[in-house]
Every structure is written in C-alpha cells, then in structure tokens.
C-alpha cells in the first residue's frame, strides 16, 4: 500500500505544527487495521528510531515533548503511534531498564527514569553530572525540610555556607546561579516561581516534576538522616521520627 510520502526537505512550516499537535484517538480495531497496512519491518524500524531518539534526547535531561516525537520520528506513521510507543517502552524496559514517564499530562511531556534498583558499590563514571546531582540533592533536601517550599534568599544563604556564592565563579560548577536557576529548572528538577508583589523580586523554590518522579520525600529524608548521622547531630533523629510518621511536614504539591 502506498503511503503519502512526506517530503523531508520541507521546513517546519505552520502546517507541520498543526498536524503533529494532535494524535488521533482510535478504537483497538482501527489500530489493528492500521497496523496491518504496514509491514513488520517498517514498524520495527520506527520503534528502533524512537528508542534511539529518546535515549539521545535524554542525555541532557531536558524533558521530551510528544510534539517532537511525532514530528521527528513518527511522522507519517501517526496512525500507529500508540503501538510504536508501547513497543518502544517495552524495549526500553527490557533492554535498558528504563521507562518513559509523563510529567506533564496536558502538554504530554516525558522523561526517562530508571526502573532498576540501585546497586551498592562504587560508581564507575564520575563526571560533572555526579557533582551537579550532589548540589541538587542538597537543594531538594533544604526545600523539603523547609516544608516543601523555600524562598530564594533562604536557599542562597544556605548554599553560601557550603561555599557556593551566586556572584562568584565556582571551581566545580562555574556559574552556580545559572546552574540552579536555569539548568535545574529546564530539566524540571526545580520549580522556581516569582512571588507576586515583591520588590525587589523574590522567588519561591519547589521540587520540580522530575524530582518528584526520580526520588521521593522518603528517599530525601533518608539522605538527610544519613548526613545528619554522619555529623552526629541529635536533631535529626528527632525529626526523622517526626517527619516519617507524621508525613512530609507540609502540603503535598502546591501549598
């Protein structure tokens, strides 16, 4: 069966955007019919392309939009989109131990997370991403301990005690402010919103949707307890108990 060939040379016109913003909802029998109209190899090829696309897109930890998936990978196979995505998900799980998680149900934005339990042992690859994660967990812990949201002034005051100054260039992180306010926000690890009617403008720090999916309050609490235990502070045993048994100490999600 001949398919309408989409000329790859054509640029990203308005028309393309409109086509890929909606995925047709179909009945299972419709999907089946569409599947049959295409060869097994074609579908498998698309599945492989999608898996590679997702893996490469995830390198920088920028969330992946469904619009991009449709435009750049699925293209004319839009009618079997759900089947391709399902198979890709199976491959990700079985081969890589990863899964596609939706963090924005309205705009359909996804991230990849690991489904494998963490293995105790030395991490073989330690690079700048490792260091950045160290900074991130510190900020997430602080926000959590402050009741799931913290003001930027409080956060920076805390970070200053760890020798991180928003104005100075850091040996490891470079422009710390940019890393925290831009990169972590783009990656959806942090959500930073301006507090209305503040002059000079102040910001509110909260966990981003990626943080919520990749870790949990219980995990962060364990981390805080471990670090606290390291320093031998008795406070942490107290409110480890308190928080663990009485919840996260704040509204879940937005206050």
């Amino acid at each position: 069966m001949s398919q309408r060939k989409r000329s790859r040379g054509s640029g990203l016109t308005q028309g393309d955007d409109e086509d890929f913003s909606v995925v047709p909802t179909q009945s299972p029998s419709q999907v089946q019919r569409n599947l049959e109209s295409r060869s097994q190899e074609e579908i498998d090829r698309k599945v492989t392309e999608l898996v590679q696309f997702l893996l490469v897109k995830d390198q920088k930890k920028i969330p992946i939009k469904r619009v991009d998936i449709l435009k750049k990978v699925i293209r004319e196979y839009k009618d079997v989109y759900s089947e391709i995505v399902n198979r890709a998900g199976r491959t990700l799980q079985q081969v890589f131990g990863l899964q596609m998680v939706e963090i924005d149900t309205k705009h359909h934005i996804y991230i990849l997370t690991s489904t494998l339990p963490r293995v105790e042992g030395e991490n073989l690859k330690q690079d700048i991403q490792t260091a950045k994660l160290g900074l991130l967990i510190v900020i997430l812990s602080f926000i959590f301990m402050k009741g799931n949201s913290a003001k930027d002034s409080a956060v920076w005051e805390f970070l200053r005690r760890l020798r991180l100054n928003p104005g100075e260039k850091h040996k490891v992180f470079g422009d710390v402010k940019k890393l925290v306010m831009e990169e972590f926000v783009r990656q959806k690890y942090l959500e930073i919103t301006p507090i209305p009617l503040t002059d000079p403008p102040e910001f509110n720090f909260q966990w981003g949707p990626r943080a919520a999916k990749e870790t949990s309050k219980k995990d962060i609490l364990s981390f805080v307890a471990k670090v606290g235990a390291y320093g031998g502070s008795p406070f942490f045993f107290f409110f480890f108990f308190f928080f663990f048994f009485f919840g996260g100490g704040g509204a879940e999600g937005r206050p």
Partner: protein
Amino acid sequence: MGAVSRELCAVSREPDRQVLLPLCSVLGRLTWSENREDMLSSKSNRLTEALEEANQLFSGVSCAREAALDAQFLVLASNLGKEKANELRSEITTFDSLTFAEDLLTFMGINRTETEGNDSDSESMSGGYLPSNAWYKLGEEAEKYFRRAPSFHYMLGSFKSEPPVPRQRIERQRKAPGGEGKRAMPAQLKKMEESHQEATAKEVERILRLLQTLFRNDPHTPISFFDLVVDPNSFARTVENIFHVSFIVRDGLARIKLDDDKLPVIEPVQNVEERNDDHSTRARNQVVISLSHEEWREIVETYEITEPMISPPDSIEDEMETA
C-alpha cells in the same frame, strides 16, 4: 477583612483622599522588603497591626479604584500570612539548617583547621579546606536516592559522515599488491607503477638468490613452501612473498610440488636444460592459492614459524609500511 464583602459602588466619584493615601501607605509598608522580615518574625505583631489598620480604612472605601487597592492588599496580606505561618511551623520543628550545612561539609570531607586566618565573613562560616572531590563524593551518595536514567553515549563515538581522505587510500594500495590479483590502481599512480615493477623484479631476484643459497647448503631437501613464504609477523608480507615466488616458478627457475604428506614444497630447478625444456615441452600447471588471515594464522601455529625466511626488504617504500 470586610472590604471585599461590601458591594462595589457603581457611582464614580473622586476617590476620597482621606482613604486613598493611608491605604497606599499601608500597602507600601507591606511591600517594602526590609519590612518583610520584621513583619514575618513571630515576635512581632506588625502584620496584625497593619491588617487592622487597613480594615478600618476600608470602611471608607466606596469607589472602584479604592476597591482595586483593597483587592491588591488582600493578595499581599494573604501571602504574608502564609509565609508567617510557614515560619511558625518551621520554628516548631526546629530544622537547623546551620547544623545540616555543617554535617554536609563533614560528609564531603572538609578539613577543619583552626590555625589559618580565614577571611572573616560577617556570617560566621566554619573555617576549613574543602577537597576538590567534595561535590563528587556527595554526588556519588546522592545517586543512591535517585532513579535517574544513565546518560546514553555511544562507546566508540558517533559516526563521522565525511569520507576518508583519498591520500590514505593511495598509500594503502602501494603497500600490498597481493597475490590474489592486482587491484585497479587510480590513474595518478601510473608513474609509480614502473618503479613498482622494478621493485618487484628486484624482490624476485633477491628471493631467488635466497632460495639458491638455501639449496646449495642442503641440495637434497626440498624446502617447505609455507616455511619459505610465510612471515609470522605480517599477513601482507606473506601474500607478497607468495606473489614474488610465483614469478620464480613461472620463469621455470623453481618448481613447486607436493611431497609425501601432500604438503607443498619448493625446489630450484638446477639444470639449464631442464629450464628450457620446461617452457616448451612440459605441461603448464596453473594454481590459484587463496589464503585467508585465519588460515595464515593456523599455518604459523602448525608449522611453528617464528621467523620469516624471506627477510623484509629495506627499500624506501617498505619503510612506510606499517606491519
């Protein structure tokens, strides 16, 4: 805050300056950030006082502009109220961020020394030297608490789309002509070919002399073909040797036959007469030898060849060879 519950007056009249100015000042007080800390402190009642003051003023609100200010005030005050509530709660739970920070530094391996006179900050920061792997150490611990997908990278790098430089290709072809048949050489090399042929002839000559020397020493033992041609260090040289030896056989200067074990052996043809005879009377035999890399390896092992019988020539071309 009774203001909002009141109906907004549809009558547009001049905003009452008596109401507007003090209202603005309350609003201003709440917005001014320096005041915020004071407002939020659990020890102060400033926020409550401001609220009461505004509430009283609102009894005079009767037109749209004042009501708008009223609404703005509502938003601001409720934000402050929420923040104050937050502050209160954290005081109850006593999260000591200072201690937490110190504990983090300890975890990262800070080396606390009292001797050095550290630059005195207004905030009392603990002195000490943070090692360069501090954040990496913390990051390594952090990974245990995340289900982060590892970044995917190709191990051998990504595919380079540019074709290899032609220059390399020419050099490769010069190095290994091969007994399996000459490859078509590009036009530019025609000039080289003559000197190449000279080199071939020289090689053939050299190998023939070697063969004759070996036989002079032991005239009655034919030499194993593979022992002669195989170079255990280079597959390419082995093929070249076969190529050169084939010239010797073609010219009737040596003869290849199978011995009792059906293995090929080579012996020089001594008799001049025999040589001439060979050309005209004897039937010509054509043999195609194919040798794969694996087969070559097997021969090296089976025959236990450790050194090449035909030593590599030291011509300039072969100096460029990478074995």
